[in-house]
């Protein structure tokens, strides 16, 4: 092996890499917030909605969980414009991520809701709380605490999966890597650096989530 590693060209492009990193984080955070809204609605519909709605939500979950993210992305980016929808790669990527996370998170939140003992809900009723108050304070809050670890690891998984949106050039970190590669031909060095950035992001977010858990969710909920 007589290959000369040259990282100079990669590090010289640090503003681009920083921007790509920011877009990856931004995409993941936005998709998670929107996806959680979808998921809370989905979980509510699946646990207390009418039968037809439950079937519909179940179909959505199964469809998303049993097809690859890449194919979902292609579907949103290439197939939906057939119906006259015009959107940028960024918007298509974000939508695909929201729809993807929504399906996984619906199942996670539903499991959390079902872990709440019946007696707790009855206690809420006995205190004359309204239906939405019971859902918000008696069911959702303790359920979110129970599923916090699963949700946070789903977020990190989504952030890593989002590397795939580079195939439609959505300006994320991996897209930046692809651009740099075509300019400098230092593909191996670039991908080593970018992979290390993703690893750093994953470790940093995982540490941050642990900190949040210790600070805000570490209250006793069982006697």
């Amino acid at each position: 092996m007589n290959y000369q590693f040259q990282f100079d060209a990669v590090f010289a492009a640090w503003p681009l890499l920083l921007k790509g990193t920011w877009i990856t984080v931004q995409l993941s955070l936005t998709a998670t917030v929107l996806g959680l809204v979808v998921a809370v609605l989905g979980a509510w519909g699946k646990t207390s909605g009418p039968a037809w709605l439950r079937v519909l939500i179940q179909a959505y979950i199964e469809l998303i969980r049993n097809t690859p993210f890449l194919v979902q992305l292609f579907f949103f980016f290439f197939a939906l414009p057939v119906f006259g929808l015009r959107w940028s790669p960024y918007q298509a990527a974000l939508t695909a991520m929201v729809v993807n996370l929504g399906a996984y998170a619906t199942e996670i939140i539903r499991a959390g809701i079902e872990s709440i003992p019946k007696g707790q809900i009855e206690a809420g009723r006995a205190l004359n709380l309204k239906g939405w108050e019971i859902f918000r304070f008696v069911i959702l809050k303790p359920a979110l605490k129970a599923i916090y670890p699963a949700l946070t690891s789903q977020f990190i998984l989504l952030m890593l999966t989002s590397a795939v949106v580079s195939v439609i050039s959505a300006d994320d970190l991996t897209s930046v890597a692809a651009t740099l590669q075509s300019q400098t031909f230092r593909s191996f060095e670039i991908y080593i650096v970018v992979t290390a950035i993703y690893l750093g992001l994953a470790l940093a977010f995982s540490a941050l989530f642990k900190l949040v858990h210790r600070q805000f969710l570490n209250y006793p909920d069982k006697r």
Partner: protein
Amino acid sequence: MRTFGWPEFLFIVEAAKWTLALSAIAFVGGVVLGLLVALARTAEHRGAQFAATGFIQVFQGTPLLLQLFLIFFGFPVLGLDINPWVAAGIALTLNTAAFLAEIWRGCIQAVPGGQREASLALNLSYVDRMRFVILPQAFKIALPPTVGYLVQVIKGTSLAAIIGFAEVTRAGQIINNATFQPLHVFTTVAAVYFVICWPLSLLAARMEKRRAAALAR
């Protein structure tokens, strides 16, 4: 210009055999390597634990796509020829091994400690202890999540399309470029994955339910 018809449909469906072949390679390779990593992760040897934790951390903490790129672009740098088949096979095997190892670590640790102590009291060697006492019990716990993870492996093979490996997703791209009928094409592609993955998901859920029922007794 071609339109999306029966031959185009068949072209995509037939590419499923390459998706299945790649999934099989990744899964078998991942099972073998994953078992070694899981054993190292649960071993008493500090160095082995450290190495296994590092392996799992790196492969779970970085995107599968970039693992694929690193192998595909990295091997030529090391002076080794590589084609998409080998690159996809290696990347998916390593990735699968990391995730299965982490799943199985939990399963091995879920076997009650008394079992290990009893086998130590019987003076069983490490190999005998694992072979006859710990792993058979861990296997029962591990089966449902392992089947569930197989679905992830199959979906993961779609990324091989990006380095030009002609499986279902790549076949879809090729047909899409020829017909410009993305709605037909990608619905077909999604349907192929769904037909393969859904039964496995259902099977995993059923096994999980059965196991939960058996434990509740």
